[in-house]
């Protein structure tokens, strides 16, 4: 069969998947095509007139890619895997849909990155951060880093790496590559008083000594150096200064780039989103965007599904927050702490494959910091009782904790009382919750929301 015929066949399955209403055809068409044609990614990638850009990281892939899209489109027409299907099959499906696109902009799973990026040979590749995540699925952090190092060595000189200088493990990857843009924070006033418990990569990649930080911004991200072997943070050319937290609505900062400086008001809270914005800005500049275009794109950004997504429940506004690993959880908690008032919360913990079957990571999230802010909490999901127990040991009084394994019941209980609320959920739990909210007519399906 000719490649064209295989592409046509795969597209038919996309239509079928959408009409049957499950998944929106974000995975199946690509999976089918890859089975028929192993080098389909490369072939489809070659058809993109302006090539491809790829974003990978443990945390922030979806948000960073959406921010970059907000900057680049318009004027560019993009093809994206915006619904989070970020394995080879999801990227192929996106290219099958985006026939008339100028540029492919894809988020890619950390473990899948080496194979996908090698096939696509992107113009630019963002390496955002590496945190411990779903050890039963990804294995140890060093394993992912080794895969990325191999990729950096295999990619041709035409690919520019856009890397987080503040992450010592990321900074150890492709250090010798000529085309390498580094981004990082440059605002000691925004630093944490101390490293968080779950910090990874505390020990020098080269010599094993403990890194010294003049500023820790998030997890193990910061202005680091090794006092023993002298390795240190690459000097970032795209930085954020004068960070101003504006409650839970926004964060302002001065974006400093080789193209000049500009004040940005990002309509999304959290230091972690400043990192996402820096990655998106550095990527967009690399792809030819102007500074004003970057500012405007970031300022008109609206949250990706389940990433600080605001939903009207009728009884009040709910904010849906994806939490899937210790570093991400800690940042969400740190961000929520900006508003000290007692909160109504719902925490949904699933242990399906995409969440990680091993739920021990919740003990590395600093729920102790969240405990004083919890007015009431409903725990739901496949491991609801486990979550409730974690909160008990974090110091939340038992009479504030309610266990409702069933998500519909949990949502009913939440909506029964008036007022705003915060919904923290693991990946499949977030999709489950959105599915239920979709049936109630409160949100659009995630693949439409993402489009």
């Amino acid at each position, binding site marked *: 069969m000719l490649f064209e015929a295989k592409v046509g066949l795969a597209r038919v399955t996309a239509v079928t998947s959408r009409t049957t209403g499950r998944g929106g055809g974000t995975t199946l068409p690509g999976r089918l095509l890859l089975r028929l044609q192993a080098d389909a990614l490369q072939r489809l990638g070659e058809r993109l007139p302006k090539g491809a850009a790829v974003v990978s990281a443990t945390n922030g892939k979806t948000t960073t890619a959406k921010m970059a899209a907000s900057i680049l489109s318009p004027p560019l027409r993009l093809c994206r895997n915006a619904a989070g299907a970020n394995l080879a099959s999801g990227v192929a499906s996106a290219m099958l849909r985006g026939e008339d696109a100028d540029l492919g902009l894809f988020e890619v799973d950390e473990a899948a990155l080496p194979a996908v990026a090698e096939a696509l040979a992107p113009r630019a590749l963002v390496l955002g951060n590496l945190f411990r995540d779903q050890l039963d699925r990804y294995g140890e952090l060093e394993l992912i880093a080794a895969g990325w190092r191999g990729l950096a060595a295999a990619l041709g000189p035409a690919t520019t790496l856009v890397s987080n200088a503040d992450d010592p493990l990321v900074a150890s990857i492709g250090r010798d590559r000529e085309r390498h843009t580094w981004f990082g924070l440059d605002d000691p006033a925004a630093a944490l008083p101390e490293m968080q418990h779950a910090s990874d990569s505390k020990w020098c990649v080269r010599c094993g000594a403990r890194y010294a930080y003049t500023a820790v911004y998030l997890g193990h991200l910061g202005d680091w150096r090794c006092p023993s072997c002298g390795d240190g943070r690459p000097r970032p050319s795209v930085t954020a200064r004068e960070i101003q937290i504006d409650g839970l609505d926004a964060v302002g900062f001065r974006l400093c780039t080789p193209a000049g400086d500009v004040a940005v008001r990002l309509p999304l809270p959290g230091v972690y989103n400043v990192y996402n914005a820096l990655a998106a800005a550095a990527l967009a500049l690399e792809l030819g965007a102007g500074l004003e275009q970057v500012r405007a794109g970031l300022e008109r950004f609206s949250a990706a599904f389940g990433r600080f997504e605001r939903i009207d429940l009728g009884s009040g506004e709910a904010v849906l927050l994806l939490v899937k690993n210790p570093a991400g959880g800690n940042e969400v908690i740190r961000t929520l702490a900006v508003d000290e008032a007692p909160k109504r919360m719902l925490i949904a913990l699933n242990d399906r494959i995409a969440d990680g079957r*091993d739920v021990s*990571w919740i003990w590395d999230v600093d729920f102790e910091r969240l405990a004083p802010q919890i007015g009431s909490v409903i725990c739901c999901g496949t491991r609801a009782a486990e979550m409730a127990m974690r909160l008990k040991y974090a110091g939340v009084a038992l009479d504030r904790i309610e266990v409702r394994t069933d998500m519909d019941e949990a949502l009913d209980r939440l909506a029964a009382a008036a007022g705003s609320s915060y919904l923290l959920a693991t990946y499949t739990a977030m999709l489950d919750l959105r599915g239920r909210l979709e049936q109630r007519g409160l949100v659009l399906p995630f693949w439409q929301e993402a489009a």
Partner: protein
Amino acid sequence: MTRITIGHLYPEHLNIYADRGNIAALERRCAWRGIGFEAIAIGPGDVLPDADLYYLGGGQDRDQLLIADDIARHAEPLRAAVDDGAGVLAVCGGYQLLGHYYRGHQGDEMRGIGLVDLVTEAGSRRMIGNIMLDCRLDGAAPQRLVGFENHAGRTFLGEGVQPLGQVVHGHGNNGEDGAEGVQQGSVIGTYVHGPLLPKNPWLSDWLIGRALERQGQDQQLTPLDDGLELEAQRVAAAIAAR
């Protein structure tokens, strides 16, 4: 006030599977009963302090290598402490370090402290998944123990050495002989994390009881409301059975 002391070995290196949840379980369950609790962090180069229980968690391979030489210093002091009635709880990588060695695929050996007669060899496939054991510890009623295992090492116990429990669901020490972990007096080693103690409150209390005994306090522990703990355990057991 009665008070127990935990010597936490290398908390900054060996903490990969939420080991602090185990410390939190001991700390909270003492606090709820009005028992004093102190955890002392023991880092590279530190002298082994006196403690009622020593805790050794698991680390990434790289981090574990960083402390492998340092821990050799503690082999003798730990043995003396155990002879003096102190307990040891070692999980995942820490469990392997209790034994004589960990032998890699190329025959390279990382020495353990040899506190217990066991050896570990690198296996060809990782043993990953929910696990449930049937445990019959000295002086305790038969108990169910649940959690999660994720290890490539296959551990074999020496002749006459008792396991912590028998595998009901999961892989255990080596995926072959149905045994999981080790128990030798107050020394316990296991691959079960999740973390281990919060969902298995009976084991937390067994360890606290042993620590109190070493303090000369032979008292019955006040029962606690373990509703959530036992519900979490029940769910974990049902998932392990799938």
